[in-house]
Every structure is written in C-alpha cells, then in structure tokens.
C-alpha cells in the first residue's frame, strides 16, 4: 500500500511541476536560490522564537497561490514526514521546566515555546522544499544545479535516477503484488523470499543498465546528458530573488508581528 501511495504522490508532484504559471516560468536557479535563502533565514532564528517566524509563511502561501498548487496536498505531505521532528521536539516541554509569561496573567513552560518554534520551523522549511519541486520540473532543477556549479556527473546521476524511478517502482509494485498473491497468511513474506526478490531485482536492474548504456553509446553518449535548452536569467528572475531575499532579511532583522501589533494598538488607543 505504501508503495502505491508513494508512487502516486511522486507522480502528482511531477504533474504539478509542468503547469504554466508565473512561478513555474521562473528560472529554476532563481527558485532554488530563493528557497535556500528562505530555509536559512527560518532556521537561523533562536530556539525560543515563534512569533517572528510567522511572517515567513507569506512566502510559501504566495508561491502556492501564484503557482496554483493545491494547499491541502502539500499540507498532507508535510504531516506525513513530521514524526522525527515531533519525536525529538516533544522532549523540550518535559525537560525545559522554566516558565514564561506570554500574556499578562498567563504563563506557560518555556519548553512548550521552543517546541512550538521547532514545529513552525519544520512546517515552513518542509513546505518550502515541497513547493520548490511542485513548481519546478525535476530536470529543470538538475539544469539549475549544473549551472550553479554542481559536478556534471552528479547531475547526470540525478537525471538518470529520475528517469528510471517510475520504471523501477512499477516493477517493484508488480513483484510485491505477485508475492502477496502467492503468500497465504505470512508465508513468503519473510526475509528469505525478500532477499531473493531484491537480489533478482538488483540483477535485472544491472542488466537493464547495460542495455541502456549500449543504446546511449549508439546515440553518441560521451559522459554527460546534454540539454538543448538555452537558459537565460530574465528580469522576472532577478526581481523574484531580490524581492524575496529582502523580504526574508526584513523579517529576520525586524520582528514584523511586533511592529504591526504596536502600530495597530497605537491606532486603537
């Protein structure tokens, strides 16, 4: 079951990345750089910071909205990978006994504040990474990485992996289905059969790679996957990186919620 779900999720992210919106049309490099800036800015906050992190939600929300990405799908994927951060973070409330007052008259354990901070950071960083792949095709990201100076071998490696990911996942799905149909109860689900399945899958993969290599040689392969696409950074890319970069810098240096709150309270009284 997990296999089918993972397969359909990858497929869905892949299809989303071929939409044609303002965000999708940006150069992959611009999106990779902006996302990295975002993640670094978010993670650099000290551990008791919660409120100042909130304005950063503007970036993923805007990207998702402009890129026409279904928010529910992204939220579900973020939830699916949360156990580790939750597991490590949940000890903070237990181990950090100090108390802080968050409102006049209301106090809470400092550990809960740092736990909340971990959760907010987690949602923001994971959401940003998922939105990057949902708005940028994987081959596009690979070309971007190559232009940003990643080794050609590593980039072709990524492209190959991606190309054959779906092929091999489908093969694994067929193998698992065949095993399940033949194993009554728990017979056949143990390690003995598993080792042979994986071994056989490995050998089939190696043979497939040999055939692929032969085909590629016949088509003039010389160690790098060439790209016909001309990629130039346009003004939109510059504006995107500059605007998002300066927004992150502003939010990092000034506590925006506090400033707005003061302003509003000033208006009110």
């Amino acid at each position, binding site marked *: 079951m997990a296999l089918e779900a993972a397969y359909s999720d990858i497929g869905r992210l892949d299809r989303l990345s071929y939409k044609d919106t303002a965000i999708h049309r940006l150069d992959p490099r611009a999106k990779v750089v902006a996302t990295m800036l975002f993640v670094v800015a978010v993670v650099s906050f000290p551990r008791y910071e919660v409120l100042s992190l909130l304005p950063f939600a503007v970036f993923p929300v805007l990207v998702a909205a402009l890129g026409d990405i279904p928010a529910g799908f992204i939220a579900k994927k973020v939830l699916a990978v949360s156990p580790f951060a939750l597991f490590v973070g949940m000890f903070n409330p237990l181990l950090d006994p*100090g108390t802080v007052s968050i409102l006049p008259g209301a106090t809470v354990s400092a550990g809960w504040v740092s736990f909340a901070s971990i959760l907010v950071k987690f949602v923001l960083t994971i959401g940003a990474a998922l939105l990057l792949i949902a708005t940028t095709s994987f081959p596009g990201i690979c070309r971007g990485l190559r232009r940003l100076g990643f080794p050609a071998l590593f980039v072709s490696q990524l492209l190959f992996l991606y190309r054959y990911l779906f092929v091999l996942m489908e093969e694994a799905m067929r193998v*698992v289905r065949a095993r399940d149909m033949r194993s009554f109860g728990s017979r056949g689900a143990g390690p003995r059969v598993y080792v042979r399945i994986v071994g056989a899958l490995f050998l089939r993969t190696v043979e497939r790679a040999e055939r692929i290599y032969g085909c590629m040689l016949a088509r003039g392969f010389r160690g790098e996957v060439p790209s016909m696409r001309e990629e130039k950074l346009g003004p939109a890319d510059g504006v995107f990186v500059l605007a998002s970069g300066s927004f992150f810098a502003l939010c990092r240096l000034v506590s925006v919620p506090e400033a707005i709150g003061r302003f509003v309270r000033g208006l009110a009284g």
Partner: protein
Amino acid sequence: MHMADALLSPPVAGAFWAGTAATIGYASKKLMDGQDDRKIPLMGVLGAFIFASQMINFTIPGTGSSGHLGGGMILAILLGPHAAFLVMASVLTVQALFFADGGLLALGCNIWNLGIYPCYVAWPLVYKPLAGDGSSPRRLFAAALLSAVAALQLGAFSVVLQTLLSGISELSFGAFLLMMQPIHLAIGVVEGLVTAGVVQYVRSVRPEILETSGSKGALPAGASLRNVLVGFVLLAVVTGGALSWFASAYPDGLEWAIEKVTGKPELSEREHGVAAALKKLQERTAVLPDYGFRKQDGAPEGAEETPSWPSVDAGTTVSGLVGGALVLAAALTVGWAIRAFRKTRAGRPEV
C-alpha cells in the same frame, strides 16, 4: 532516520553541507578519472533501484514488525565507494525534494550520515578487511553484516551529535544516545542480515559483478582513501564531531522508541540526572552559545535550571501576538483571493 531542518542551526548545517559538497566533488572527480562512463547509467538506474527496493517490505520473524533494505552499504559493496556515495547522494536529494525527508538544509547532514559512513568509513575499515578477496562466503556474510551494523551505529550517533550541536532540542547527550543507539543496533542487525543475504545471492548468480567492483574500487583507491579518511576525521573534529546513517521509513523503530519512552515515565526523571551531569560537556560543545544552555551572567551554579529566557515584557508579547495573527490572516487572505480570482477567470470563456 533523516535529520530535519527544524532541528538544525545554520552553522552546523553549513559545516555538513560543506563537507558533503566537497565529497561529492571528490567522488565525481575520482569516477571521471577512471574514464568509466559505463558506470553512469548503472549508477542512475541503481539509485532508482534503491527507491524501489526500499518500498518492498518483509516481515521480521517473531516480532511482527517489518523491515527493508538500507541502501548505502549494499551499494558500496556492489559498486565500490565512490559510485556508491554518488548514488546515495542522489537518492537522498530526490528524497529531500519529493518525499520532504529532512529538508534542503538538512540534506548536507543526511548525505553525510547515510552516504559517507557506509561508503568511506564502514566499507574500507570494516567490510574490506573482513571480506578479504571475497572467496569465502562465510567471511563475506560476516563482513556485510558487521559493516552494515557499524554504518548504522555511526549514523545514529551522528544524528545525536548534529542535534546537540545545533542546540534546538532540549534532550541531553546521554539520554538521546541511549534512545538512538540500541534501536539502531536492532535495525542494523536486521538490515545487515538482509544486505549480507542479497550480496550472497548476487555472488551465487553473477559472481563477476562482485569481483569487478571489489578489485577495481579497492586497489587504486587504497592509498588515497586513507588521506580522505584523515581529512574526514579532521573535518569531523573541527565541526565538533559527526556521525550517522539512515533509517528512512523506519516508523517501526521510531514508534517503538516512542512507546518505550512514553511507557516508562521514570526515564524522563533519569534524564534530568544525566542532563545535569552532562551540562558542562554541552556548554563546551555548543557552537552557538545563544542556542545552547547559556549560563546567565553572575548566576550561581545551582541556578542553571532557569532557562535563558529573555526578560519578558508582556506588552511586547501582546503586540507580537496581535501582529502575528494579522500577518498570518493577511497572507492567507491574499492566497485565497488569488485562488478565487483564478477560478473566476478560468470559469469565464476566453476573449
């Protein structure tokens, strides 16, 4: 178990990214020097194979829980360390993007934890000496098993170190270590057995695959590998220590640990004791004093339990809460408005 962005501080993440990027460059160069472009499609397809194989589960006899193949160690044994490392790096990159395992900043740590330990530590130091020339099936089995266990132990230890160096989690070194190492020993043994089984199967069916990878990877790389190792050790010391491996979809192991922890409340009390004992060590190892257990100026030793919470001005907090709520509401409204606008436009016929 993938490291997560939210648990890392930028200096720690940056240090491991630097180490990982340097190793990717080194491994790429090594492979290109070999002029063996036959390996390029093989590596790519094997990366996809790792994905596919991780999705096939098997039942662990007598426990009812399920396990699956790790990845790094079996690749190192079958492909040699450089190719295996690049495959693991690409697998983890795709996992970070498509499955959001860990995140982009933590990717450096994850490649380090799950790629470098099996390929550049466990393979040359454990697998190679034990397996010998690979002619004895029993030695091969033991070597594969032990190296997989070693790689996973190093990996788990590394996750602990990276978390502590970042100072985001409140867990003490000893308590976290006690939680991570035993469970990963159990996972490691299961993975090691499976890895050894697959290696033996491949050897019995296509022995030449194993032989070429063994002799080719080992002989020319032997001397320089030692230099690389020394480099890694230095880097590890400089960054404050480091180590880890994997455990991707190990919800089983994780749930087990959570159950164990929550089922025994006395554990948290013991952690307090350990925490106190290790406080000094932690202070010394904290990269960013701001993030760690900073001792308040002039505070007596006994007062260390009070957290380094900045003095609270309730007015500031209220302002923050009001502003934060406003910003969030504004962001969500704008997002919703864009979506609504798109829908109405899509509904109208094109002019």
